[in-house]
């Protein structure tokens, strides 16, 4: 029993973090939102070189989460969940280059289909199928997160099969890990801000009303983290209850990150309510990911079904 990252995993996180932090990821995200993908694709290639796109097939879900936590912390744009979590598992091989997929009903739109070299649709009948260029709609659907450029790819068919697959679970878990990183980032930036900003002659971070809100975020994130990595460990094992562990991780990580975003905005005051401030890059991403790859309601119902099924099974 060793429920802690290994030294290798920690080193991997640190090196990815250094790489991303050094590439001005906020500027990358802002450009991506404007439709200028050059810097984002350069960063993509460098991360792929570090192995991020092969983790799903070559490493364990723990490493996948380690990487996605870093992607979240810097709000790196692009269809990472699609290319580095869902598709490699669904197709059974590493994806070369940027790819994306729509998995209706949970992920009805293909993220960044305008930059992806391959666009797939997974309707739960075997492997995801390639969407021919003429069937990719050209007008993006506007997301709350301007870096998420969403595209309709053909008809959405409502199928249940996909949401029980390992590919879906890894995608949901990677999203949870990203939310964890996003939440940690917003908390860290908020702590920095409240120790600098002064009102009524003292740092606002010395007011208990502010402190307790930030303490609540610390608590929520501290308990989301073990659910994410516990689900990663569960997903590494052949049988068991990994599905509901993934759902628990997604629900709690989304809740913690969302709390971080609400509190983060509140303690920043009006400056936080501007597009100009970097906080906005994280807030809108968090809001988008709360419902991406399975809404909280969907994941809660999966947990409940599993718990009740267990009881019927043993009765």
């Amino acid at each position, binding site marked *: *029993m*060793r*429920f*802690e*990252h*290994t030294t290798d*995993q920690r080193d991997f996180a640190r090196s990815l973090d250094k790489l991303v932090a050094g590439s001005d990821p906020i500027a990358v995200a802002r450009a991506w939102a404007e439709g200028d993908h050059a810097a984002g694709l350069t960063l993509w290639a460098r991360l792929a070189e570090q192995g991020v796109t092969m983790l799903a097939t070559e490493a364990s879900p*723990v490493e996948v989460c380690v990487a996605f936590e870093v992607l979240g912390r810097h709000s790196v744009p692009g269809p990472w969940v699609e290319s580095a979590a869902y598709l490699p598992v669904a197709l059974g091989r590493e994806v070369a280059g940027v790819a994306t997929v729509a998995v209706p009903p949970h992920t009805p739109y293909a993220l960044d289909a305008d930059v992806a070299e391959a666009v797939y649709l997974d309707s739960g009948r075997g492997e995801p199928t390639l969407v021919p260029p003429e069937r990719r709609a050209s007008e993006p659907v506007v997301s709350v997160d301007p870096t998420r450029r969403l595209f309709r790819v053909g008809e959405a068919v409502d199928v249940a099969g996909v949401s029980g697959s390992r590919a879906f679970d890894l995608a949901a878990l990677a999203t949870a890990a990203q939310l964890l990183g996003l939440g940690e980032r917003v*908390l860290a930036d908020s*702590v920095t801000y*409240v*120790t600098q900003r002064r009102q009524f002659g*003292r*740092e606002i*971070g*010395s*007011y*208990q009303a*502010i*402190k*307790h809100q*930030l*303490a*609540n975020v*610390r*608590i929520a994130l*501290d*308990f*989301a*983290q*073990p*659910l994410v*990595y*516990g689900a*990663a*460990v569960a997903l590494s094992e052949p049988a068991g209850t990994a599905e509901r*562990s993934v759902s*628990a991780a997604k*629900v*709690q990580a989304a809740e913690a990150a969302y709390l971080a975003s609400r509190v983060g905005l509140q303690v920043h005051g009006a400056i936080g309510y501007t597009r100009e401030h970097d906080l906005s890059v994280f807030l809108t991403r968090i809001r988008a990911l709360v419902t991406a790859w399975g809404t909280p*309601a969907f994941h*809660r119902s999966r*947990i*409940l079904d599993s*718990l*009740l099924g267990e*009881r019927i099974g043993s009765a």
Partner: protein
Amino acid sequence: MDLDLSPGELAFRDEARAWLAANVPADPLPSMDTSPGWRAHQEWEARLAADRWSVVSWPEEFHGRDASLVEWVVFEEEYYRAGAPGRVSQNGIFLLAPIIFGHGNPEQQRRWLPTMATGEQIWAQCWSEPEAGSDLASLSSTARRDDERGGWVLNGQKTWSSRAPFADWGFGLFRSDPDAQRKHDGLTYFCFPLDAAGITVRPIAQLDGEPGFAEVFFEDVFVPDADVLGAPGDGWRVAMSTAGNERGLSLRSPGRFCAAADRLVDLYAATRTSSATERVVDAWIRAEAYRLYTWGTVTRLADGGEMGAAGSVNKVWWSELDVALHETALDLLGPEAEVAGPWLDGYLFSLSGPIYAGTNEIQRNIIAERVLGLPREAKGARA
């Protein structure tokens, strides 16, 4: 990273599981805050101790099994899953014993630990005073030096001492140096029999009507030097090493929350009250988070790390989880919720969680200041 138990740990778990299956009383014991319930719980402690299950993590010479931290958590998981009774001895074995192991001399260890392990002597924590709750260091009960008799004379009043109405011994802090510069200095940690001359224990009924705690009055109570824990004047430091235990890992192992969450799902399966569905799932998720968080803590501690202020994060989580679990169960019970039963008992008890062991407001102050590094609020308002 993994969550696998070693073959030795699995064997330990199986042994514990088998023993509990064979020994846990079929019917719940009466409340430990009544005379018959107290006796029944002491008998249960004796039964646990007879087969060395009362203090698994202690050394073998003190009735323990030298169990590792992992094994302790495993044992607790099994204990609560088996529906075993609450621990009447918990103030002693979880709060005081670590101090006796760490700061007590060999004579004190031999004198106090074995009877604590068997439940023969039950201990009460006498820390809070009427004017010193959250601000514990502002306590005013005094200890006056008596060189002639080789000891100290205690005066003052403690309050909210859990189990004190029936307990045998108490432990607490007294101001031994009235001239100390800081309020945290000049405090000394004492142990004393609650039937000593000059001690009066007045039981106080809790929200459930039972005398779960008490006021303890000290009038010229003599305590020999042999019953001082740690160095005189060093009481705050000694005491704070127990506070970490109370808030952190020891007092609330995940076992009881996981077991309660399981019972909550059972209750839901039986009632299917759709308006509470989401809260049932959330209670289960939060218990699961607590279980996994604990494994992370156990790994860190096994690597030589310290609990530190993370104990405060823990305390807020389990106490609020406990309330949420029980509130949800009451909602599922509908009109039956107001009628006596285990969920209602558990609910009333859960309400005290955000208050005792340092209120959750104080814990949040600690998290903000010591974990997040935020500035102190103002002079005087220190956690």
